[in-house]
């Protein structure tokens, strides 16, 4: 038996197929992954992402510490509730994780991946020397992500008036602390929606209320196809410790300005950026296969500039054909993939396929 979130019984009640996910017993689907995917694109779905690790950072040096630890710059977060996506880099520039950081009344709240929990906490704790800072894991919290075109309207109607109005009024990438509830307009689907970070003991009631309001449960299977359509990277698949953010379509999330901010990995990624501009490092792009067949992670591709590899691939339920992320030589214009012995031409596009239910690439 693996670790279980406070919503495990709710998953069983909803008919979940439970699988092991990095040591956690998690719902992969509740029947049909495609139906759950379409539910999020067309109405509203709820995901239990309580397996993800919440880490609170407080202390007088919290900002100075995170400006050193993270590739993006938390000084951009001017007021409590604001959110930022960032890579956490190793000294050699490898991506040790990707995360969301929120500015909070007490300091900062960071949500990191579950599979990287142990090494992330060890790394964060190893970097506190010289900073007056406390790094505290919050396993007592649960996370429910509610996403889809009707998600905010439906979710805010369930809450008490003050909370409901606060949720309805949130701007994208903004959150608000409401007592022991934290809610933010962030997510991993390319649809609008909110994430609720709540005390573990309150999670089941919120879940049940959402389901009673016709928000459907969505498993990790659909979470993966939704994020792929949105062109969002999955840690451990599209990037990891062996890859620079520069070759992982994450350069725009690195804050190089101000030039005197000394963040971990800065020298390495500065070199990587120059090398890529010379064509000496690959890039992460999108691939589209409009014919039959499905692109899969690990498949080799060849371009007019050399060899590459698919890092994430699947069938897109919204587009009804296959899409993928692939790392290929920078500047490639044509690409072929070998699908079970047959060489197939695929199209190179920007790594962003679907936003707000609509196709976005040319």
């Amino acid at each position, binding site marked *: 038996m693996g670790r279980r979130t406070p919503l495990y019984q709710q998953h069983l009640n909803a008919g979940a197929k439970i699988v092991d996910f990095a040591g956690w017993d998690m719902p992969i689907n509740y029947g*049909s*992954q*495609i139906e759950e995917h379409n539910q999020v694109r067309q109405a509203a779905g709820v995901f239990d992402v309580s397996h993800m690790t919440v880490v609170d950072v407080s202390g007088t040096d919290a900002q100075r510490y995170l400006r050193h630890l993270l590739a993006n710059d938390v000084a951009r977060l001017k007021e409590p509730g604001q959110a930022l996506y960032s890579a956490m880099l190793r000294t050699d520039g490898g991506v040790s994780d990707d995360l969301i950081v929120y500015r909070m009344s007490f300091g900062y709240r960071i949500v990191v991946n579950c599979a990287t929990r142990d090494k992330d906490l060890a790394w964060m704790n190893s970097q506190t020397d010289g900073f007056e800072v406390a790094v505290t894991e919050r396993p007592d919290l649960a996370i429910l992500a509610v996403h889809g075109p009707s998600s905010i309207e439906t979710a805010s109607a369930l809450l008490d008036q003050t909370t409901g109005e606060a949720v309805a009024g949130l701007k994208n990438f903004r959150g608000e602390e409401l007592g022991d509830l934290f809610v933010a307009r962030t997510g991993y689907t390319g649809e609008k929606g909110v994430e609720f970070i709540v005390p573990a003991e309150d999670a089941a009631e919120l879940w049940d209320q959402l389901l009673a309001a016709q928000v459907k449960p969505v498993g990790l*299977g659909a979470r993966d196809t939704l994020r792929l359509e949105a062109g969002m990277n999955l840690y451990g698949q599209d990037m990891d410790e062996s890859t620079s953010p520069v070759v992982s379509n994450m350069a725009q999330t690195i804050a190089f300005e101000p030039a005197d901010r000394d963040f971990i990995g800065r020298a390495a990624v500065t070199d990587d950026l120059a090398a890529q501009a010379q064509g000496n490092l690959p890039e992460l792009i999108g691939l589209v296969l409009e014919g*039959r*067949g*499905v692109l899969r992670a690990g498949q080799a591709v060849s371009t007019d500039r050399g060899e590459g590899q698919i890092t994430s691939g*699947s069938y897109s*339920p919204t587009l009804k054909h296959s899409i993928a992320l692939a790392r290929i030589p920078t500047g490639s214009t044509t690409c072929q993939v070998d699908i079970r012995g047959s060489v197939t031409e695929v199209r190179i596009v920007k790594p962003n396929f679907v936003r707000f239910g609509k196709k976005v690439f040319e």
Partner: protein
Amino acid sequence: MSKIIEDLRYTESHEWVSVDDNGIATVGISDHAQEALGDIVFVELPELGATVNAREEVAVVESVKAASDVYSPLSGEVTEINEALLDAPETVNASPYDNGWFFKIAISDGVELDELMDADAYADHCDDD
């Protein structure tokens, strides 16, 4: 628990076969197989008139999760293919034993049929999976 039909024969690779009085075998994949694959998004079928051998890869199912080969349970000639699956592959999920059939073959070796599992043996095989 997935559904297993009493009168069919089954392979270890999760195809089912039903043979009519004229020696025409209808082939599909079991409920257990479609459930394990998840949502099916593409199906490739054998060519009409092709001669196939038992245990030969003759079709492919691609689900959201993975691609999987379909093996012919018996030797013979392909007499019919279920072209409806090309446009509606989800039929395999919805109706694996009826509308979700894959192809039919005129069997050339009746003895091969005896080597396939009956429903009880297949149920045990699925439990071992």
